[in-house]
């Protein structure tokens, strides 16, 4: 039996709630409920105290319905009066709807700004609304988690400093160091020098920015993030490419987003951003357009060619958009030999821009496909095809039997290809 029932009823409690209670009690066994209403109400106000038993005739029924009365009676702040005022405002209504969804445990954010609310209202369909809300929810969650992490780190740092203080107090000695601790800045400067060198003598790597029409704002953001990432890994490389951003129109969303992300640094980047097309800058014969749709498979990295990467994140389905671009300009196309080297499992053969850059950098430095294709996400394939191993064994066996010389070169190649 519930323990929240109370016997003592103050008459003053009844009055404010009579309005709510009366219509309800009319439907039901009046007297029994009336008393229980009061009991429930009172009990809910004073939950700490408890009485052992109650005196009602139909305990089962009462026990089941009792909670409703409390629910009805504990009215929240001015309900009926407000509703008419907010009728006209769909924004407020949407905000409330989202709040109710949150109570229901749906994936919606707790706080929502006016601007975000406006974006929601502009969504065409219900599912796009839901998707956007989910995105905000995830973002909010991440932010919160980061905040907590940050606080924990700060606390840990505080502690470390304290410990260090104790230590330094113990051994307060001057030590001899050859360098000041300016590593980050030195690195930056060194990379800058390398970048400048690449601007003069480096092999061009072109990012074709002519895809803004194909992308929605989200995809564009992703594309710019990937470009930033690629530029970063190019900068850190031993022998960087000379990066070109071609077809980058002024006032294009691409440029705006890039400037937003790079900020001050945009004008100091060691790369060439140009409105011109790559066909205007380079001889057509030297250009190779990289696209996963290409029928030609890239066999080796050529140091005298200009590789073009489409800066295009394709979440929608635009099959063959980049191939069409290359066809229009009559450019040579190539794709990475993913199927030749990897057991492909899932996912598209389209790699992200930074992965492509890393693969190209690796090819440029080592020329080994196995090494370069390490940058293909592991989830997409289940490992390397072991034909190279086989050939290695084959060659070794041949060497042992000393018959290798009797094989013409072509036959060996054919063997490798067939595997």
């Amino acid at each position, binding site marked *: 039996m519930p323990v*929240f029932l109370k016997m003592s009823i103050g008459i003053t409690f009844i009055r404010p709630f009579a309005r709510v209670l009366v219509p309800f009690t009319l439907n039901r066994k009046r007297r029994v409920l009336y008393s229980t209403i009061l009991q429930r109400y009172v009990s809910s106000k004073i939950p700490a105290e408890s009485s052992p038993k109650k005196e009602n005739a139909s305990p089962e029924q009462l026990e*089941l319905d009792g909670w409703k009365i409390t629910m009805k009676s504990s009215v929240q702040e001015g309900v009926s009066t407000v*509703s008419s005022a907010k009728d006209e405002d769909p924004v407020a209504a949407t905000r409330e709807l989202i709040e109710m969804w949150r109570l229901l445990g749906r994936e919606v954010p707790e706080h929502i700004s006016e601007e975000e609310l406006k974006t929601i209202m502009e969504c065409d369909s219900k599912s796009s609304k839901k998707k956007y809300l989910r995105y905000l929810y995830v973002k909010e969650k991440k932010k919160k988690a980061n905040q907590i992490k940050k606080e924990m780190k700060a606390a840990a740092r505080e502690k470390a400093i304290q410990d260090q203080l104790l230590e330094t107090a113990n051994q307060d000695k001057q030590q001899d160091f050859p360098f000041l601790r300016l590593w980050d800045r030195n690195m930056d400067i060194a990379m800058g020098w390398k970048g400048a060198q690449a601007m003069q003598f480096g092999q061009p790597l072109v990012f074709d920015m002519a895809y803004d029409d194909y992308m929605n704002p989200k995809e564009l953001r992703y594309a710019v993030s990937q470009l930033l990432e690629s530029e970063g890994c190019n900068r850190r490389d031993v022998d960087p490419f000379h990066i070109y951003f071609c077809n980058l129109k002024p006032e294009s969303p691409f440029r705006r987003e890039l400037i937003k992300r790079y900020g001050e640094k945009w004008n100091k980047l060691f790369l060439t951003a140009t409105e011109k097309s790559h066909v205007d800058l380079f001889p057509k014969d030297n250009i190779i357009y990289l696209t996963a749709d290409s029928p030609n498979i890239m066999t080796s990295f050529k140091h005298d060619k200009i590789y073009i990467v489409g800066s295009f994140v394709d979440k929608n389905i635009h099959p063959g958009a980049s*191939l069409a671009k290359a066809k229009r300009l009559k450019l040579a196309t190539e794709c990475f030999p993913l199927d030749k080297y990897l057991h492909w499992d899932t996912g598209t053969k389209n790699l992200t821009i930074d992965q492509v850059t890393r693969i190209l950098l690796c090819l440029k430095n080592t020329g080994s496909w196995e090494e370069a294709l390490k940058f293909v996400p592991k989830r997409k394939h289940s490992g390397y095809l072991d034909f190279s191993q086989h050939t290695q064994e084959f060659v070794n066996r041949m060497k042992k039997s000393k018959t290798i010389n009797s094989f013409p070169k072509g036959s060996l190649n054919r063997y490798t290809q067939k595997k």
Partner: protein
Amino acid sequence: MNFCFTTIRSFPKLWKNNPYLGVGPGHSYNSFFLKDGYGIRNQQKLFSLKTVSPQNTKAINLTAKARYRRKEDEGSNKVSSEFPHLFAAGAAKKRSQMNPHNQDLALSPERNIVQLPSKPLNSEQWDKLKEDFKGKANFEDWIIIQLINYNSSIDVAKSLLAWVAAKNNGIVSYNLLVKYLCLCVFHKQTSEVFDVYEILKARYKTLETSASTLLIRGLIHSDRWREALLLLEDIKKVMIPSKKNYGDCIQGALLHQDVDIAWNLFQELLGHDLIPMMETLKAFFDFGKDLKDDQYSKKLLDLLLYLRNNQLYPGESFAHSIKTWFESVPGEQWKGQFTTIQKNGQCSGCGKTIESIHLSAEEYELLKRKILSDVIDGGDQYKKTTPQELKRFQNFVEHCPPFDVVVDGLNVAKMFPKVRESQVLLKVVSQLAKANLRVLVLGRKHMTVQSARWRKDEMEKVQKQASCFFADNISEDDPFLLYATLNSGNHCKFITKDLLRDHKACLPDAKTQRLFFKWQQGHQLAIINRFLGSKVIFQHIPSYDTVVQTTGDSWHIPYDEDLVERYSYEVPTKWLCLHRKI
């Protein structure tokens, strides 16, 4: 040796088609039942439930399916049903079952095994149950979801809420209330729905969509159904109500004899570009039985035309409702029967000829234009072809006289993996040429290059017997196939096994897509040979269009059977034939 191989190969097929062996295509029924027996026993140990456990329902579905298959296979003495028509309802399902793709029906391991209560518990019992529960989720949320899943009685849920309220100062969270409401609505406990409605109204300023949906559903059966309309208005303030919301309100209005509101809501529903649920339409017909009103009858006929225009097909029970309504119309003496349509397009019931599958001249021109502009061109000619190639193709098509058959060379050639491509193509083409048909073969340039799969001499023979157009290796050949066929005229057919869904998807609107589909049904020849024998057999083309249709004193309405799974690119095979007795 060869003989040996073929017999072995045909064995698995034999037992795949024979349901009496107890070995179904995907799963073995016998062993499944055995397993299931254990499953149920286990289940009863874990849950003291009267309701059907999920495994059990699956078993029922399977038996139903098995029964259906058996029924069909009995009738399969005729040749045609072994190869269901490419677009016949259930054909895709059957095709997928022919592949020995064993889907494991492995049951997900039951975590969180808490015995679901069958009777209301008191708070100590709930406390104890909560202690037993080990899981990440909130116990209260989890248990009420389980109660909903197993349709427990509302008293159990009520006792849960009472326990929660007692713990929580009499406050029950919104989430729990809505879940409880869901259970109440399912059990049609109207007074409980009222109570929850009062509580929600008292505690919360607004409701969100799921609660409103449930309330609407719960209220329409009661005298307070008009409040459901108010709830609908509330939803409209923030978003477009779902077709379910509208459907419920319409049903409520019809239940309470308010026909005008129902039709107004229906108009509103259509105005939002929503496709009404079949239940809603069925409700109109069911209600119409008791009504002798010309205006209303006319509107019902409009509904049937709506089905026609949108190529929607009623379900089995809806078809029954339509039949009953027609037969109840006084003074008109309609007679309805469920039939099929014969191959020549005659209704087996009344012998009338069903509408032809051919498009009207106007529709034909429209489709031709759209194929060229949206499928081949598509805003960027370089995507599927190049302008030079398009030009070459158009020249080619203009200068050649109309063809009788257009062959998708690559699709046809790759049909029999064991036979050389060029050989298959030659065989098909020469058979067509012998029948004195003007043949066009579409392919890619690589076909003309000598290789192990494409012998030059055979390709030369093909070129002698048919006109050929070879597209670039990286161009798509299907769009050319479509246009060449359309350009040749209405008599021209094309041969491919491809369902051409990707090309249909390129078309801009649903109406053109339906036109395309109709044309495709009427003009696509598919090869149904399993092996390349002496003669290539083509799928027969239906001469009639599967769509709701009328001649004034007769109606023919295709409908979906309940036990057949129809894919979106298939059409029903069963018809309701209605005609007036004279």
